[in-house]
């Protein structure tokens, strides 16, 4: 992992309301924001950040770009990401929600072919406390340390970070892969990166019901992760109702390859426990478990 303050970062969609709000905050946090991109607004500047019409113009003006944080409207996000990839950017944070899933399928194929890391969409992005903000995490809730937070959501991630910070446990990084149906990177991908990251001693996995991300993560933890992992799953009390059209029965059980129970909190918690991962009952329990594990790391049996 190479998420440090030396990363050169551009902000695509910098003139969108969300982009215009967070660009100065990212910069103030120490992130090296070298350019903003907004078609039709080239030549202006925003909070001292020069704005270009296209990524490739920024490239020739500011040199190589490591990362793009995209605040573009959802239907423009795919094009923005492809433009960044064409300009050689290999890490892309998609903050915007509402990107059509088939646009994401297209982008994921392109990302695989070009070895590009995509985070999001519908994601607050990445924060490396006191170093780097790639997205919209509220910096005040984080403090530097050695716990990596990995999640699928936004404000619940902040909640967990805050409870760690209050307990004096700092974070090496926090990343949310995003809360849309199709996202650019997976929990296993990130587990591997955090496992290899020298700054991270333990991983807090913040999951929620729906999909099978946590089940896949549990499987991957059992197979390949050496560092201690602590999990929390939101949605234990959620009503089980599922939309059932006349195709429902077949599609629900077959298309997504879920058994009847996969996607529920029970399924996820069971899978995680089976993988040797302690699962916190409530957010406030997390710091305690982390502290215990960091003092006496469980030796994984493989």
């Amino acid at each position, binding site marked *: 992992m190479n998420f440090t303050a030396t990363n050169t970062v551009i902000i695509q969609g910098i003139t969108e309301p969300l982009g215009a709000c967070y660009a100065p905050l990212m910069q103030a946090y120490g992130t090296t924001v070298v350019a903003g991109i907004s078609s039709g607004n080239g030549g202006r500047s925003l909070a001292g950040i020069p704005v270009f019409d296209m990524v490739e113009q920024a490239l020739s003006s500011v040199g190589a770009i490591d990362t793009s944080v995209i605040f573009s409207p959802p239907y423009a996000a795919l094009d923005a990401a492809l433009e960044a990839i064409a300009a050689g950017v290999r890490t892309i944070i998609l903050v915007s929600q509402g990107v059509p*899933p088939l646009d994401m399928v297209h982008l994921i194929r392109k990302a695989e072919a070009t070895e590009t890391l995509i985070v999001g*969409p519908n994601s607050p992005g990445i924060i490396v406390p006191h170093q780097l903000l790639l997205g919209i995490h509220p910096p005040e809730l984080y403090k530097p340390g050695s716990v990596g937070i990995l999640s699928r959501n936004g404000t619940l*991630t902040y909640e967990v970070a805050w409870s760690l910070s209050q307990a004096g446990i700092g974070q090496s990084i926090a990343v949310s892969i995003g809360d849309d149906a199709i996202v650019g990177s997976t929990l296993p991908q990130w587990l591997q990166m955090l496992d290899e990251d020298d700054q991270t001693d333990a991983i807090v996995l913040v999951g929620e019901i729906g999909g099978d991300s946590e089940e896949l993560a549990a499987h991957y933890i059992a197979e390949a992760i050496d560092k201690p992992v602590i999990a929390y799953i939101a949605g234990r009390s*959620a009503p089980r109702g599922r939309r059932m059209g006349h*195709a429902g029965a077949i599609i629900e059980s077959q*298309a997504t390859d879920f058994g009847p129970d996969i996607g529920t909190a029970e399924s996820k918690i069971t899978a995680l426990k089976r993988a040797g991962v302690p699962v916190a009952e409530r*957010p406030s329990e997390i710091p305690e478990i982390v502290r215990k594990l960091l003092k006496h790391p469980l030796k994984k049996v493989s």
Partner: protein
Amino acid sequence: MDLLEYQAKELFRDAGIPVPAYQRIDRPADLKSLTIPYPIAIKSQVYMGGRGRLGGVRMASNTIDAIAAAHTIFNLPIMGELPKVLLAEAKFEIDQELYLAVVLNRSIRRPVLLGSAQGGIDVQTAIAQMQQVVVDQEFSPFYARRLVLKMGLSGDLLNAVTDVIERMYRLFLNKDLDLVEINPLAVNTAGEVMALDGKVSANDAALGRHPALAALDMRSGQGATLKESRPPGAAWLPDVLSTVDPDGQIGVLANGAGLTMATMDLVCQAGGKPLNCLNIGGETRSDALPEDLCERLEQGLELLSRNKQIKVILVNIVSGTLPCSRVTQAIAKFLQRPVSIVRSVNSPHDEVRLSRVKPFPSLVVRLVGVQLQEAELSLAKTPAIFVEDLDQAITQTLSLVRKREP
């Protein structure tokens, strides 16, 4: 967004997928000017499943029978849903029934093709023989061929079914669908194929770039287009409140789905009964500003406080950039609001006069963010109870409910 069968068939026909001759029936009298030959099937156009079992499909071989059948079906609710429209359809001789679908698999993050050589009404048999092909690269018809071979078809039927799947996939791609399903794809003894029933679900996030598709929404009038046509940055809320426990007395309001669920879990774990949980939305809309949270918060409080069963509202806001004092200002503003006429969110066309009956629900407010002390101060002048710790907020909420129990 789900489509009705006749809408799906219109898309199929435009995509070159063979469908029987059909006619939309808005009232029984429409059958007098039927242009398709008898015998026909008359089918209830509802979103719910199981209509065949429940009498929502009837055959008719002349106008008199057809009109009678239409009258019956128009008045027959399917799982509580009455049809607004029927479909009259020419009969097709069936030798074999196949199941076909194209659907997005969020786990492998690719579209998959599904097919079963045993389609039709018996879902279990279809599932038992279901085959799957992942479209891992850009689609080309050979993916469809791969599925049809796995289904065990051969010869001319292989090519005919491959062609149908190819067209289903193009439709899926061109219209940003979540699902295209044909069940059954009927085969007659001559080897001709015909899509006898079908289901199409459009992706809600993509509807804004398919206005023709969005206009097909029969459930909510303007429906999804309404949402898209809102001015950028305007406040928005989910259309439907999720009901957790019908006997509950607690309303939970939080920002973000994960946080809302976590808060709800804590209430339940402590023995509380949430009636409604409301997620007022996260922070990743490109056209929204952090300040918009305040408006959504006021709307959400309005919505929850409308239900007299709710005794206590627990507000749990983890604010990103917006100072907590701004959040509490919004709460204070809400608490000073006069009684007003608003539109119900569940049925947006009915006007509901709010009578803010006593006892107005108690408000427990838990916030995370900056300017927390200013926030606490600004709430001091209101009846709302400010708590900093989440677990304590839960305890406080439950004790308030107990206090207010009759």
